[in-house]
């Protein structure tokens, strides 16, 4: 039998006692628990937290890349083609895809973020908002109106790193 490590044992007791003292010390003195009493006080999630996915409908071309890349098949898009006025005067009218339905089923979504990464038109964004639980599971299917509302909570994109070249617009 190995020698009992008495100093280590006592040190262990000291660690738990230290944590206890730290937790019951008043907040003003730098104490308090590591946890947050959720419904009463809320943690601000980090700016890039994966809370909910927001949709900017105008940018969506219903290219279906997000739908196809979703591992859970939780995005549903239906669209029809429409004629839009030509970009330059005298040109032919353009054909554009108009989104009829853009649903994300958050009961299925596993927050992998592949759809956000894959979108080539800057139409879907992460928002750190997280309070959208529902008593009925069917209500977790967010339609395009609701997804559009989440856009308000999307934080500004962080500034580019110094020296990073900005993508040139057309």
């Amino acid at each position, binding site marked *: *039998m190995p020698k009992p490590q008495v100093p280590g*044992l006592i040190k*262990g*007791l000291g*660690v*738990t*006692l230290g*944590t*206890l003292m*730290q*937790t*019951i010390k008043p907040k003003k003195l730098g104490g308090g*628990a*590591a*946890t947050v*009493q959720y419904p009463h006080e809320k943690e601000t999630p980090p700016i890039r937290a994966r809370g909910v996915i927001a949709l900017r409908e105008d940018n969506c071309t219903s290219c279906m890349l997000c739908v196809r890349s979703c591992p859970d098949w939780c995005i549903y898009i239906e669209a029809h083609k429409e004629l839009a006025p030509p970009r330059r005067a005298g040109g032919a009218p353009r054909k554009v895809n108009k989104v009829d339905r853009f649903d994300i089923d958050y009961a299925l979504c596993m927050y992998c973020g592949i759809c956000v990464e894959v979108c080539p038109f800057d139409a879907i964004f992460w928002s750190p908002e997280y309070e959208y639980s529902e008593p009925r599971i069917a209500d977790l299917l967010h339609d395009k109106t609701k997804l559009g509302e989440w856009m308000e909570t999307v934080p500004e994109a962080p500034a580019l790193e110094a020296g990073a070249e900005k993508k040139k617009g057309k």
Partner: protein
Amino acid sequence: MIFAVDLPYWAQSLLRVLGGTVAVLLPAGTIVYLFLFKMMSFMQSRLGPMEAGPYGSMQLFAEVGKWLQKEDIAPERADIKVFRAAPLVVLMSTFLLVAVVPFGPDAYFTDFDAGVFYLLAVSSISTLGILMAGWSSANKYSLLGGLRAAGQLIAYELPMVLAVLGVVIQAGSMNLQTIVIKQNSDSIFGWNGLGYPYILTQFVAFLVFMIAVQAELTQAPFDMPIAESELVSGYMTEYSGFRFLIFFIAEFATAGVFAFIASVLFLGGWGVPFAWFGWDDITQVDNWMNFAGPLIMFTKMMVLTGIIMWVRFSYPRFREDQLQRFAWKVLIPVSLVNIMITAIFKVAF
């Protein structure tokens, strides 16, 4: 010293039943709330229950209410009668234990001379209940847990008995009340300001006793029988609702009762040093000690269970062979040596 009022037999019995229930349930509830809910949370840098009542103080009632609502399920192939009786056997051993603990000069349930012998015998009834639970559940995990529990409880019963023997030799009595009186009326080399709590001379026995109690209660680091990561919950796996609640109460009530017993054996029990108030022996002790005594006992119990729980929350679990080796190769020899030395001193002085 006798109570001023002379109660009829039925009233005495009623008082005893009430007192016993309070002496078992009150410590259990306090331990669970103060230590299991709060102290453990603080030690893990969280606050624990905060919603039910101020600082979550009503959480216990919420938990009990939840358990009482749950269905009483027994496995199909379980030995139903034994399965149902097992938690009650465990709880019964707790109630039987508290029967010999003195709480004051007259505040005791029974006062008989083989008290220490009785409590050591009765405390092993819970082993029986645990083995019954493990065997009758018709579940491999339960059976393994029950067997481990039986092996552990029997192994640690021995050092406990041997540790207590040191106190018995020194006090020259097996009567718990006499042991308390002795500790409070004796003096240390003629100085009687502290009485003579046996923790001073029997410190080794006290350590061995507390370690054995930790193991008897199957609290970590001796929680191999419950070992939730490998045996689900050991012998408690198949229990739900009311019967699980009884196991739960029994676990913490037994912790309280063992702490009572430890404070009686080593810390002077309900008494204050008699010299403080100029009492010479038990007959001169004032009547108010019958009310102060339980409070003193309760305080000592809280300190001791606090230590038990502190150790529980700090240490990881022993492996089964380490656990057995520790009992047989360390604790038992140590307590045997302690008995020998105590006996030599007893005879020499």
